[in-house]
Each structure stands twice: as structure tokens, then as C-alpha cells.
């Protein structure tokens, strides 16, 4: 026993020194995540899903990045492109009542995004809390007005607001191997009227939405790539996760339904996760926090994507969590998901302004090829 103690006492400093050196050298050799630009054969790509959120404050003078870059990429193969706007399409409070001073500018904001969808591409807008009149009493009507705006601006093209008519969803779209399930999560969190005599929603209660979602994320067969999209994230390292700034730790006490730590938000996320249990979707994609985050989902969903950096004027902070694969804060950008024919799903993250190596800052095969 005594000799063992002697050995420990004598050798511990040596181990500590070796540990110090090793850690230091590893740290010295550490490098930034290397992104290799993988050129995918276009003929092998089945569907390309562009994810951009919180884009409702475009520059009134010019169409800059990331919208113009997204348009250019989608225009390369519009027939297989879906541009998915992840809510907060019109800041600060959606479409106001006609006659309001903000009406024309609200129209401009949504028009800039509709114009960013190249001819032949499909566009889907998901509602966010700001689209619901900034969580206000006019919310349900603001959503309906936005749906009408989008329909009129689309001029017959395949561009729409989903779920429609202020309904909670879920609404599924099948495109090749992709099943895209859209939810209106603000419906869950809204404190004012969420249905009226003209609603006619297929699901009207939290239980019914959860049950329908459980069915829709279980398509027959194993080959489907299930992506669930909504405005509010399941996990975030941004402001709505009670991070960032001096008020961050105290937001939990505010009980704001828009924040991860509020009980109503938690309740909604628990319901969504329960619907995924047993058959996890590949991705849950959201916006809400104005950053770009790729996170590990856990048992109920494989990957969580937060792509809410669609407006350069709105970008904000995000921190790296233990669940984070990639985080980009304070930069505008979007994500691109290429679903390959047969097998393989590649995620790429584009950030503006880009690095010296370009706007592509992160890539990952979500489903191995």
C-alpha cells in the first residue's frame, strides 16, 4: 500500500506534465472545420430543399445575400428545388389591416421573398410568431391576409403558405423520396383567437395535431426522408434558448412562450417529440433564432436545424451547445439539403459574408450515400 502511494506520488507530476504537453500540442494543431466543396452530379440529385427563415426584413434598396445567392442556386435546377421559408416572413407584425401605414411596406417584404423563388421552383412559407401580428390579437387575420398576399404574388406558380387558413397542420407534401411535413407552431403558443367560423381545419386540438403528426411522420416504406418544418426550434443556442446577453439567464423567469424555457413552449415541444418517438424524422427544421445551427437531435429526431438568418439586419448571437455540430452567429445565410436518388442526403450551410474560401461553411451527409 505504501509503495503504491509512493508510485502515485512520484509519477503523478510526470503524467500531469505529459498531459499538459499533449493537450497544448493538440490545441496548437487544432484547425477550423475544413469544408470540402463536394460537387454532386446534378443528374443524381432528386430534390433540393433550401431552408431560410426569418427573412421578413429584406433591404428596401437592393436584393442582397442571402436571398440573391439562394435564387441563383435554385435557378440552376428550379424543377427540383423547393424553397422553404421558415416563418417570420414579415417583420415586425405580419400584414396589418388594410389602410394601415405599414401595409405597403409589409407587402414589399413578402414580395421580395416571393420574387426570390425562380420560375419553376416551388415555394413554401411557414408562419412564424411575427406573422401572427407579433403574437397579437389580430394574428389569425394577419395570417389569412399573408396567405392571400402570397397567392396573389405567386400568379399561379406553386408558391403557398402552409399550413393554410391559420390552421395548425400538419400538412405533408411528398416529392420523390422527400416527405415534407409543415406545422404552424405559433398556433400552439398564441394567446389570442386561433380559430373562428371559417377555419374548417382538419385538426383543431393539440391532441389531434399530435396524433396527425404521429401518422404523417410514419410514411409507408423505409426509403422516405421525413423532414418536419416549423418556425419554433426544439433546441437552440440562441436568444430564445435563454443565451446571449445580460438578460439571457433571466429570460427563463419571464415565462415568454416564445422562449425554450417557458412552460407552454416546453409543453409544445414535448408533444412534438412524443409524436416522433419510435420513428424519428431525419430532420426538424426551424428558424426563430437568427443564426445558423446544426444540432444533434437525440432519440426522437436525428438532426435539428435552425436556419433563421435570412435577414442580414436581424442576425444575432448563438452559442455552441453540447448538441451542436455547427454554429454560425451574427451572419446571414441559409441551408441547402440535397436529397440524392436512391440514397444520400447532403446538408450544406452557406454564410454571408463568406470566408476567404467562399460562402459554403459547413457540409455533412445526414444520410450516408
Amino acid at each position: 500500500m505504501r509503495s503504491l502511494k509512493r508510485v502515485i506520488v512520484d509519477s503523478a507530476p510526470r503524467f500531469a506534465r505529459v498531459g499538459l504537453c499533449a493537450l497544448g500540442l493538440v490545441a496548437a494543431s487544432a484547425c477550423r472545420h475544413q469544408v470540402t466543396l463536394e460537387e454532386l452530379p446534378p443528374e443524381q440529385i432528386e430534390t433540393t430543399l433550401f431552408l431560410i427563415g426569418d427573412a421578413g426584413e429584406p433591404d428596401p434598396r437592393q436584393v442582397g445575400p442571402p436571398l440573391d445567392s439562394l435564387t441563383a442556386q435554385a435557378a440552376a435546377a428550379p424543377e427540383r428545388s423547393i424553397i422553404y421559408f421558415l416563418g417570420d416572413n414579415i417583420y415586425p407584425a405580419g400584414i396589418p389591416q388594410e389602410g394601415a401605414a405599414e401595409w405597403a411596406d409589409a407587402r414589399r417584404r413578402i414580395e421580395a421573398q416571393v420574387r426570390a423563388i425562380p420560375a419553376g421552383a416551388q415555394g413554401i412559407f411557414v408562419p412564424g410568431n411575427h406573422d401572427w401580428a407579433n403574437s397579437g390579437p389580430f394574428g389569425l387575420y394577419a395570417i389569412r391576409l399573408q396567405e392571400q398576399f402570397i397567392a396573389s404574388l405567386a400568379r399561379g406558380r406553386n408558391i403557398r403558405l402552409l399550413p393554410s387558413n391559420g390552421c395548425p397542420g400538419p400538412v405533408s407534401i411528398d416529392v420523390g423520396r422527400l416527405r415534407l411535413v409543415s406545422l404552424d407552431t405559433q398556433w400552439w403558443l398564441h394567446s389570442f383567437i386561433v380559430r373562428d367560423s371559417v377555419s374548417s381545419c382538419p385538426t383543431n386540438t393539440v391532441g389531434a395535431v399530435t396524433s396527425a403528426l404521429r401518422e404523417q411522420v410514419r410514411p409507408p416504406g423505409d426509403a422516405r426522408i421525413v423532414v418536419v418544418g416549423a418556425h419554433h426550434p426544439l433546441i437552440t443556442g440562441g436568444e430564445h434558448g435563454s443565451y446571449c446577453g445580460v438578460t439571457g439567464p433571466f429570460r427563463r423567469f419571464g415565462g415568454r412562450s416564445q422562449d425554450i424555457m417557458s412552460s407552454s413552449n416546453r409543453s409544445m415541444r414535448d408533444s412534438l417529440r412524443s409524436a416522433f418517438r419510435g420513428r424519428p424524422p431525419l430532420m426538424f427544421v426551424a428558424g426563430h433564432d437568427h443564426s445558423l445551427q446544426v444540432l444533434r437531435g437525440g432519440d426522437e429526431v436525428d438532426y435539428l436545424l435552425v436556419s433563421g438568418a435570412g435577414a442580414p439586419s436581424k442576425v444575432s448571437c448563438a452559442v455552441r451547445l453540447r448538441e451542436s455540430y455547427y454554429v454560425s452567429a451574427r451572419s446571414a445565410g441559409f441551408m441547402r439539403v440535397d436529397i440524392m436518388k436512391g440514397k444520400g442526403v447532403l446538408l450544406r450551410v452557406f454564410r454571408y459574408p463568406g470566408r476567404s474560401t467562399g460562402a459554403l461553411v459547413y457540409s455533412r451527409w445526414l444520410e450516408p450515400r
Partner: protein
Amino acid sequence: MIRIALLLATLLCFPNLAVTQVVPEPIRPTEATPIGALPPIALPMPASRDDNYWGVRLQIGQRRERGLEDLLAVAGGIDYQVRGGSIFGVTGGYQWRQNCQTPGDCGHSLYGARARFNLITAGPTIAGLLGDDGATSTLGTELGFGYAPDVNLGENACTLDLGVPLSIAMLERLHLVGFVTPGVVWELDCSAGDTRPERSYLLGFGLGLQQLGFRGLDVHVGVQRIFRGATGVQFGVSVSWIRLP
């Protein structure tokens, strides 16, 4: 960034040679309890707000350049991280006098409890200047209590400490965290001896690697200086693991 890391690695690998004194120094309460016996460690990495997490920690630290005797401490701990943020932990371990000059008084156990609150967890305010826009800065505060019985021939050591740690985590693939842990320690009178309660300031700093190989596994190396008397320099390694769902 690489230059800074190389510089720190060099400093850690080649510390100054010992300044030898001729009389063994009594162990101060601050040196005997976990705050001074064990190496500093970075604030916990944030995690999902949906869960609380249990974790374990192993720390080994050596206090050198304090005279004839160096001090070596090994300790284990259990931590509890609340909703992915602040962390509460208890520690138990043992400290040896190396080159022990006082037979019969060559070691003692040590115990501690510590709360570390993440006050501000924010983005790349500082690290962004170095070009990493995914970096995370965490400013917190910590409060600890330490106890070590029978330190200097029957004297007990008790300390209360307050610190303002700052951590900056950087890089995408290899999560490197640099941290600094300034603080103040009050040596409390918890012994029948004639120890006079005193206040000391201390400064720790170090580097760590978060999520090293496994999610939840962190390794830190730390250096600490107590600004009082011949207390030398503490350096050591901490390995912690948080159990994630």
C-alpha cells in the same frame, strides 16, 4: 489563434525551475482545500435546456515552487448541471506532501462543495476578433466551500471562496476552451489551533478541450497562483464527463 496556442503550450511544457527554500512551509488552508489544492477548470459547456445532467470529475494537481515540499492532490467529484447551464458539485480527495519533511503529517483528505453559475453565455464577442464566429464566451460566478482535516499536525482548514470565471470556447471541429478564474478566498477559523483567518486573492487560467472523442467528455489543464506567501504555483489536469441523454 495557432500562435497563441503554441505560446501557451510552450509555457505549460516548460515551467520555471523551482525556487528552493530551506524550511518547509506549513500548508495554508487555501492550499489544503479544493480551491487551491486542485487545478482550475472552465465553466461548464452549455447544453440543451430540456434536461438536468449528472457528471463525474477527476482532478490531479501539483503545487510547486513553494519551498522544500511540493503538494500533490488527487480528487474526484460529482456534478449536477441544471438545465444545461449552472453546475453544482461536491469534491472529495487526498493531498500529499512530496519530499515530506514532517513525518506523521504527510497527507490529509480534502472536501469541498461548489456552485458555478453561468451568468452570461454569449456569442463571439471576443473570440470573433480572432475570426471564429461560432465561438462562445461564458462569464459566471462561483461560490465554494472547502474543508481539510488534520492539515498541519492537527489543524483543520476551512475556506470560503468567490470567483468570477470567464471561458471562451472556440474552433469548430476541436472545441478548444481558454479560461481564466480570478477569485478571492477567505480562510476560516475552524480549528482549535491559532490559525488567523486571512483573505487571499488567486488567479487561475488554463486550456481545455470540450467533447473530446465523446460527447460530454472534457479535459482541462490549469495553472493557478495564490497571491500570498510562498504558495508556489499550482498546475494540473481535470477530466470531467457529463452524462447526456
